[in-house]
């Protein structure tokens, strides 16, 4: 390695040159681990050297408009065909799991909400559920809090999928779709702002319930957004689904089978696009998802078009859930009346010294959580979002780990890109819908 090479190279994280790639690595790149026959493997392992020299390694990203943040892909090309892909990540790593070990459980949601910034409420939810499970109060959360959480999560799922529709359109040159997607997403964000006070990183779902009750007029505001978005989705379908260019760019591109998706740990729309009807809301219901009616949308081909269509259909399903929530929203407390977790109401602080002390202690020291460890998962727009918490009995998590769906789903990229055209790479990256804040944490 020359001096200039070592200056610009990040080292072994990068993809090595083909001549250095061992037979085992060549087998891996073609998915031998998953399904290659012996004969094929043997043929690949002894590719003649002159054939190996015909390839070129191209760097895509980290500063690339269609890599959704700072994803860097190293592509090995033979002409315009992609042979190998290696995602190089970590450009957005800010040590949030380490930070989580110094923030109390009350502060933790503020940290986790910043991981997946397109669906922050799910991060808060999974952290809160894990904390509540450790505390043993998961069955005591008031009904209204559960339904408010569901309402917010489904609205957030809508905004996240609308964001996907926008960026997916942008990546493929359907610029009008980008404008429409952003426009509708903005409406749902405005609604979330009205309820939680912030457009993103709400810190609204907290251990014990939610931060505040729903504001006056929330029902009309939700209905207004639902009535607004519903006909627009029909417009998208007219605009995109019937369009030959759109279909040509997506159908049969980036195909993955169910076995491959399961072996690679993929979840969410990627797994469902292969025909596996796995949705945690249905299969391992949390909150009150067993009390609402909704369908799990699955694809048949496992290609980019299925993943696009599934997300579009999931927006409709989410809107159906939101309408049911509007009918079923119970009255009652919006957070648990357990003095150990919930601070006293503002009015009490003015008149009671004890309440003031209690409030102060809760926000400086936090509440203690019994020792133990727990893993809790929810279905985020991108797949299974898990939280592994270890408590040593203090008010700070001993270890807080978030299993980000984007991080795991990125592993399907080399598989989906292999043998495809470089022009399709953008479509495939877009269809995985990675959020780099969650990948790098």
């Amino acid at each position, binding site marked *: 390695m020359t001096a200039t090479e070592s200056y610009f190279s990040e*080292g*072994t994280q990068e993809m090595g040159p083909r001549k250095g790639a061992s037979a*085992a690595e060549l087998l891996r790149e073609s998915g031998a681990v998953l399904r290659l026959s012996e004969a094929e493997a043997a043929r690949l392992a002894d590719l003649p050297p002159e054939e190996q020299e015909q390839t070129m390694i191209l760097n895509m990203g980290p500063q690339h408009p269609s890599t959704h943040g700072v994803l860097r892909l190293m592509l090995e090309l033979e002409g315009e065909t992609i042979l190998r892909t290696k995602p190089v990540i*970590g450009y957005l790593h800010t040590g949030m*799991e380490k930070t989580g070990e*110094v923030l109390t459980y009350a502060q933790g949601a503020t940290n986790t909400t910043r991981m997946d910034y397109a669906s922050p409420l799910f991060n808060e939810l999974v952290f809160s559920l894990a904390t509540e499970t450790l505390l043993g109060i998961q069955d005591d959360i008031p009904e209204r809090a559960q339904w408010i959480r569901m309402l917010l999560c489904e609205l957030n799922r809508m905004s996240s999928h609308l964001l996907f529709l926008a960026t997916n359109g942008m990546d493929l040159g359907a610029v009008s779709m980008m404008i429409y997607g952003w426009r509708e997403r903005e409406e749902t964000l405005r609604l979330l702002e009205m309820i939680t006070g912030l457009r993103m990183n709400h810190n609204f779902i907290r251990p014990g319930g939610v931060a505040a009750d729903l504001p006056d007029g929330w029902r009309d505001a939700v209905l207004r957004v639902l009535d607004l978005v519903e006909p627009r989705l029909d417009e998208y379908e007219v605009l995109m689904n019937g369009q030959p260019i759109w279909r040509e760019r997506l159908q049969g591109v980036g195909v993955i089978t169910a076995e491959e998706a399961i072996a690679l740990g993929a979840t969410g729309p990627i797994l469902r696009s292969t025909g596996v009807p796995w949705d945690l809301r249905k299969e391992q219901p949390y909150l009150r998802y067993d009390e609402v009616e909704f369908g799990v949308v699955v694809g048949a081909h496992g290609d980019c078009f299925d993943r696009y269509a599934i997300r579009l259909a999931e927006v409709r399903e989410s809107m159906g859930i939101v309408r049911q929530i509007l009918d079923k929203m119970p009255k009652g407390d919006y957070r648990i009346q357990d003095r150990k977790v919930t601070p006293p109401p503002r009015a009490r602080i003015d008149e009671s010294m004890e309440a003031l002390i209690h409030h102060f202690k809760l926000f400086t020291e936090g509440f203690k959580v019994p020792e133990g460890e727990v893993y809790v998962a929810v279905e985020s727009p991108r797949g299974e979002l898990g939280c592994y918490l270890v408590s040593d009995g203090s008010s700070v998590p001993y270890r807080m780990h978030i299993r980000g769906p984007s991080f795991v789903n990125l592993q399907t990229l080399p598989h989906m890109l292999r043998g495809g055209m470089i022009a399709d790479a953008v479509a495939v990256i877009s269809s995985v819908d990675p959020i780099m804040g969650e990948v790098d944490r």
Partner: protein
Amino acid sequence: MAEVPDAEEAAAPEEGGRDEPETRYGVPVTHSRGQVVLHPTREQLVDLVRMLRDDEDFRVCVDVTAVDYLTYEAHRDLPPGMTGERFEVVVNLLSHRRRERLRLRVQVPADDPTCPSLFDVHPGTEAMEREVYDMFGITFTGHPDMSRILMPEDWEGHPLRKDYPVGMIPVQFKGVQNAR
């Protein structure tokens, strides 16, 4: 969530008395907030995961992570007879058909921080094991590409270890050995 109703049922054949430690698939079991936790040794890990995948339908490896118990002073919920080591590799498995989750906790001593890789059984553990290596310095033997994934290549130390300080890290500049 992740309740396993038939946990007792599966353990029933082993039932010999109350003091007999509960086992499942020949591995000691504990329960944590209603979730089933298996405690295989490092030697048992790969065979156990392969058996669970092929015979018990735990076909998805959802998560691989680790915990550094260096400064942990509370009681660790381990089966009787098992000593807690400094590191613990935590593997989460999922069965779609049974709608069940299993968690595997593997003890990894501080003086030999290695663990067999699950890559051959579940190729999806590739990035997760790299992350554990990056953050904890636990090497996975048999992993095809044991390199850092989130931290820069030339970073020193493993940030999620408990003896790694939180603040006051000197700013690192790359490629500038002698600027003048």
